[in-house]
C-alpha cells in the first residue's frame, strides 16, 4: 500500500472514529481530542500496518487503546448531565427530543464496552467479526456486548416485558431518579471495559 492510500484511508475513516470516540467518552470535546490522539498514534505507527489487512479494525483498535491509556492516566469522568445537552444535538420534534434525551441518558449509563459495541454495529455497520477484531475480543463476546446493550436499553426505556399480553412498546418512562441519582460521576469507567 502506498503512503497516499494509507493517508486517504485515515481521512475516510474519521467520521466512524468520531462515532466510536463519542460512544467511549460521552463528551464531544473529549471525543475530538481522542480522535486526534488516535490519528497521531496511527501516523506514528503506520509502518507497522500490514497492507491488505483490515485497516478499519487496526484504526479502531488504536483509538480504543488510546482511550484506555488516557483513562488510566487521568481517570476522566463525565457528568451524565453533560451527555444529552452537549454531546448530541437534534432537530427532532419535541416529543421525539424527549425520547432521544432518555435514550442518550440510557446510553451513558451503559458499560463502555457495551455502548461502544452497540454503536459500532448499528451506526458504523460493523460485522460482529470486525467488531471483535477492532475491540480485541472473541466474536461471541462482541455479540454478547451488543445483545446485552440492546436488552438493557429496552429494559430501562420500556420497562420489563410483561409476562403475557405483550404488545408494541409502551410509552417511554422517565427514569428520572435512576438517571440522575448518583449518576456516573466518580465511577471508574475503566472497570467496565
Amino acid at each position, binding site marked *: 500500500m502506498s503512503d497516499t492510500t494509507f493517508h486517504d484511508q485515515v481521512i475516510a475513516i474519521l467520521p466512524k472514529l468520531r462515532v466510536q470516540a463519542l460512544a467511549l467518552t460521552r463528551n464531544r470535546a473529549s471525543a*475530538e481530542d481522542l480522535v*486526534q490522539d488516535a490519528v497521531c498514534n496511527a501516523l506514528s505507527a503506520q509502518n507497522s500496518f500490514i497492507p491488505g489487512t483490515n485497516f478499519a479494525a487496526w484504526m479502531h483498535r488504536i483509538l480504543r487503546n488510546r482511550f484506555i491509556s488516557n483513562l488510566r492516566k487521568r481517570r476522566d469522568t463525565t457528568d451524565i448531565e453533560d451527555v444529552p445537552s452537549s454531546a*448530541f444535538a437534534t432537530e427532532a420534534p419535541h416529543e421525539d427530543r424527549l425520547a432521544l434525551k432518555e435514550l442518550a441518558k440510557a446510553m451513558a449509563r451503559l458499560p463502555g464496552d457495551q455502548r461502544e459495541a452497540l454503536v459500532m454495529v448499528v*451506526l458504523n455497520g460493523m460485522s460482529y467479526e470486525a467488531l471483535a477484531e477492532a475491540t480485541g475480543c472473541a466474536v461471541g463476546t462482541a455479540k454478547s456486548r451488543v445483545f446485552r446493550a*440492546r436488552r438493557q436499553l429496552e429494559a430501562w426505556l*420500556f420497562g420489563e416485558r410483561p409476562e*403475557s399480553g405483550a404488545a408494541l412498546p409502551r410509552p417511554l418512562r422517565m427514569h428520572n431518579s435512576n438517571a440522575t441519582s448518583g449518576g456516573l460521576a466518580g465511577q471508574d469507567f475503566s472497570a467496565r471495559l
Partner: protein
Amino acid sequence: MKHLVMTRPKQPPAMVSSQREREADGVSEAAFDLWLQRSLHQLFDQVAKEPIPEELLRLIEENRRK
C-alpha cells in the same frame, strides 16, 4: 362425495395463547430494534457529519508529505 376439509388441528387454548405472545414479542422486538436504530442515527449522525477540523487534516497532510 364428502369433501375433505383440511383444517388445522385445534390447539389447546394455552398453546394458542403462548404462540400469540411469542408473535407479539417478535413484533415488539422488531419495533424496538427499528426505533433504536433510527434514534441512534438521530443522536450520532450530526456529529459524524460535522466538518473535520482543519488542524487534523493539516496533520495528516503534513505526514503524507514526509
